[in-house]
């Protein structure tokens, strides 16, 4: 008996020596059936350590079972693997802690194990029994005849590289949210190791300039082929832990089918619910591809993005370019407006936009993930190119995707580069689009100018579409996000957003100032040339109300009246301009206005009896119309009589009273 000890398991291989050669062969074949795809399950187990959701996702009941205290002391169960034909036990295994021998998942209890075995490993037939009273439970495992007949086993998940699995998850969002903190920390650590020294990085200011070429990644001509190659190379690093971004995307992505086709990379063979595991690998791959410009920000951001972002790169890589392009096109057609609630890659795919031509099928996939991510976080986009999609998320996603290895690879295709280079800064924001353009241009200085133009142009097109959908402040986000050096992932988004806004505002301000200095400006009404300081100052000289002219006009107007005495005209003039200046508009203002007018023109009233007369007549008229009460009337009169100080105090009090009483009072 060969005894192999695997962690947590004791594998006892029982072979029947009595078998002849044929039987041996059969035995071997039969044993083969029971061989587990260790690599896959190991990875799953590893992942489950970081992210318990791996377990939770598929084996809910197991989790529940975990909560129950394990009744059995050790939980040892003996698995007997039987040959169907001769009913002999080919192999015996003792499993501890109720862990499934096939997928190494620890189940909560006996019942849980039973259910798990029946559901997850339905290629085998299980018999649960207790051989003897004091023996532990045993399980007889035999291959189902159906399985043998249809040769399912041959296509079993033995070699991840041959057949990638796709995994559909429903509650990704929730999971991701919950995982953020964990991932963040982890990712932080990992990403910080990247050596960014070699990467040309634009300053903050530079990055804020649209269409600057000095932004982002070092000039590399990225060829699509290279990129893909690179991706493949990096794949392995990521591949082990993760991959199935594809599966994730399936939910949202229209393009998932194409992705499925990307068999070359085979990244996705594993189905991972979480992208967490993939993120570390991605970090590694990033390191590998160190050439890519990975901003600290990006890294940080990517950490945030975590789940989705991390996985996205691999995904993108895996997809065939053609496919992705195809997908992109399809997605591009979708209107940006759909982004709001959809996680779908639709938007993402769009982002691929122009870049799609060049390559990067990845974009679509990545973008989708980013999109999802973007929802959670405000995407900061640096990641160029894909910007097309108006949805904020899209750029976000792109960033993530881009950040992964591709950066390292210069490809001729700007888009490709862009997508790759933009590290996850993932907060997707709509504005990414413009930035994307810039990034694209900047990241591939080496790229052929024609290419650049092309991509830029494309981006422009793309950019133009999103504007509607773009939220105002986010544009700069993309760019700004790349900048924040080593921003902690946990850094409050508000700060980042405000920073983005500031940078955007700065840029706009700079543009505005430039325009203002460009030519001679004139005042609009007088047509006098403006001096530069006048132009730069914020004062508005055109909206002033010309009191003098208005007063004059009023006076002239009144002077035209016929049959009115001069004093009356004088009084009317004074009252009219008072009302205009003090903006006495409502009925309720009138009592106050009366008192103030009296105070203002006290001198004139005292000196001119006729003025006083007209003022009184006017007050009577107001009282007739019910605009002032007798109280106010009286107050106004007393103002003239009292000296100024007393009148001021009394009127302030009376004004309050007068305003309260609007009803007419019979004056007695």
């Amino acid at each position, binding site marked *: 008996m060969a005894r192999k000890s695997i962690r947590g398991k004791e594998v006892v291989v029982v072979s029947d020596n009595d078998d002849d050669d044929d039987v041996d062969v059969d035995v071997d074949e039969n044993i083969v059936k029971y061989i587990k795809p260790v690599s896959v399950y190991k990875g799953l187990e590893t992942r489950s350590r970081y992210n318990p959701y791996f377990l939770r996702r598929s084996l809910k009941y197991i989790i529940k079972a975990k909560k129950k205290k394990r009744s059995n002391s050790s939980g040892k169960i003996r698995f007997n693997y039987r040959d169907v034909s001769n009913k002999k036990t080919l192999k015996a295994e003792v499993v501890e802690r109720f862990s499934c021998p096939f997928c190494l998942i620890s189940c909560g209890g006996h019942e849980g194990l039973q259910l798990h075995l029946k559901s997850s490993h339905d290629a085998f037939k299980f018999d649960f029994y207790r051989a003897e009273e004091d023996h532990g439970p045993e399980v007889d495992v035999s291959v189902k005849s159906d399985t043998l007949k249809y040769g399912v086993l041959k296509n079993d998940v033995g070699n991840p590289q041959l057949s990638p699995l796709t995994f559909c998850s429903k509650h990704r969002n929730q999971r991701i949210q919950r995982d953020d903190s964990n991932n963040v920390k982890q990712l932080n650590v990992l990403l910080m190791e990247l050596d960014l020294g070699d990467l040309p990085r634009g300053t903050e200011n530079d990055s804020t300039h649209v269409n600057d070429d000095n932004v982002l990644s070092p000039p590399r001509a990225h060829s699509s082929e290279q990129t893909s190659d690179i991706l493949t190379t990096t794949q392995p690093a990521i591949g082990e832990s993760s991959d199935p971004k594809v599966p994730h995307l399936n939910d949202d992505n229209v393009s998932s089918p194409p992705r499925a086709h990307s068999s070359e990379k085979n990244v996705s063979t594993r189905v991972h619910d979480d992208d967490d595991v993939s993120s570390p690998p991605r970090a590694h791959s990033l390191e590998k591809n160190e050439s890519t410009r990975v901003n600290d920000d990006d890294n940080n951001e990517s950490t945030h993005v975590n789940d989705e972002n991390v996985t996205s790169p691999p995904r993108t890589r895996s997809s065939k370019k053609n496919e992705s392009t195809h997908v992109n096109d399809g997605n591009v057609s979708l209107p940006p407006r759909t982004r709001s609630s959809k996680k779908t890659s639709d938007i993402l795919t769009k982002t691929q936009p122009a870049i799609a031509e060049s390559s990067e099928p990845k974009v679509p996939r990545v973008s989708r993930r980013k999109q999802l991510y973007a929802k959670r976080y405000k995407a900061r986009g640096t990641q160029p190119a894909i910007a097309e999609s108006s949805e904020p998320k899209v750029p976000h996603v792109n960033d993530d995707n881009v950040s992964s290895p591709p950066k390292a690879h210069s490809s001729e295709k700007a888009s490709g580069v862009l997508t790759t280079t933009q590290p996850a800064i993932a907060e997707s924001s709509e504005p990414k689009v413009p930035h994307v353009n810039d990034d694209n241009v900047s990241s591939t200085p080496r790229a052929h100018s024609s290419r650049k133009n092309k991509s830029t142009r494309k981006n422009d097109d793309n950019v133009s579409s999103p504007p509607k959908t773009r939220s105002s402040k986010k544009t700069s986000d993309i760019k700004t996000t790349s900048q924040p050096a080593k921003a902690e992932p946990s850094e409050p988004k508000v700060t980042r957003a405000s920073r983005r806004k500031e940078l955007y505002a700065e840029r706009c301000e700079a543009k505005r100032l430039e325009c203002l200095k460009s030519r001679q400006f*004139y*005042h609009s*009404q*007088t*047509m*006098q*040339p*403006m*001096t530069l300081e*006048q132009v730069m100052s914020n004062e508005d000289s055109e909206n002033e109300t*010309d009191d*003098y*002219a208005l007063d*004059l*006009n009023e006076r*002239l107007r009144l*002077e*035209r009246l016929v049959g009115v005495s001069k004093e009356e005209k004088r009084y009317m003039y004074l009252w009219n301009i008072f009302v205009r200046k003090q903006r006495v508009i409502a009925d309720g203002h009138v009592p106050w206005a009366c008192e103030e007018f009296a105070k203002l023109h006290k001198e004139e009233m005292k000196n001119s009896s006729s003025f006083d007369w007209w003022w009184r007549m006017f007050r009577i008229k107001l009282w007739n119309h019910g605009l002032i009460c007798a109280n106010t009337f009286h107050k106004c009169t007393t103002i003239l009589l009292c000296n100024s100080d007393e009148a001021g105090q009394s009127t302030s009090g009376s004004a309050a009273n007068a305003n309260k009483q609007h009803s007419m009072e019979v004056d007695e």
Partner: protein
Amino acid sequence: MSKITLGNESIVGSLTPSNKKSYKVTNRIQEGKKPLYAVVFNFLDARFFDVFVTAGGNRITLYNCLGDGAISALQSYADEDKEESFYTVSWACGVNGNPYVAAGGVKGIIRVIDVNSETIHKSLVGHGDSVNEIRTQPLKPQLVITASKDESVRLWNVETGICILIFAGAGGHRYEVLSVDFHPSDIYRFASCGMDTTIKIWSMKEFWTYVEKSFTWTDDPSKFPTKFVQFPVFTASVHTNYVDCNRWFGDFILSKSVDNEILLWEPQLKENSPGEGASDVLLRYPVPMCDIWFIKFSCDLHLSSVAIGNQDGKIYVWDLKSCPPVLITKLSHNQSKMVIRQTAMSVDGSTILACCEDGTIWRWDVITK
């Protein structure tokens, strides 16, 4: 709006010249090929009564009238922009008495040239279209008033280069303003006329403080509080077509349209009733063959006679002091066949200059018997 009441018809002058005075051509200068639109004697400075300036094309030229019909060119200024075409020119004065020449044209910029230093003293920017006439306030020669195609009239201080007032708006002209003139004695008043067939009399009395402020303004000219005057004191519809020249004749106005005559009429303002009033046409001075617009007349300093050219190159000199109007003489030369855009009479009326469409300047001197 003018109502001609019965008994108040205007008197038309007879075209039979009296020949009280006669003139002969003493000189003829060809100044380039471009039409000359303005010729103006200097009435401000007694030292320069014989100096006149012409405007045409992109050129401003100063000449001196010498004895025996001689004319000597003194200075010439050319705008570096070949597209500029000066339409009008006027003499002005600095605060120190130094003579300025203010010229404006199609570009809408008024060039104030200091003729003593032969430099541009100021360039007044502000009009939105071509400048049709510039006139100087004789009582305060730093103030010039400009009439523009942009339907506005602007008052400038040429010393400081400030635009003080803009006469435009609801009550302003509704078409090109072709001519302006200051009142000889009332410093606040001036008259403007334009293509909207109206003649408007404006007053800047209420804004005189701004005028005075403009002399002492040290800040940037564009920061000056330029005021808008939207309502004239009086509007007259004496003519039924473009009114392209008006001059004050005391409290009366001489104005001409494109209907072959100059009118002398009295604006009857109503006190305290701006905008209302009547205009009483007193006399008519027929000028045959004068039905294109932009032909301007001129008077001598004492307003004793008025000289006007016509499309045929002839000059009619009317006596302003006689009623019914008397034609003093009619000047014609067989080589003078082009449109005479403007005439200029010397201070005493002994010299008459005419500038023509073909760029020639004709000098007529009175024959002393």
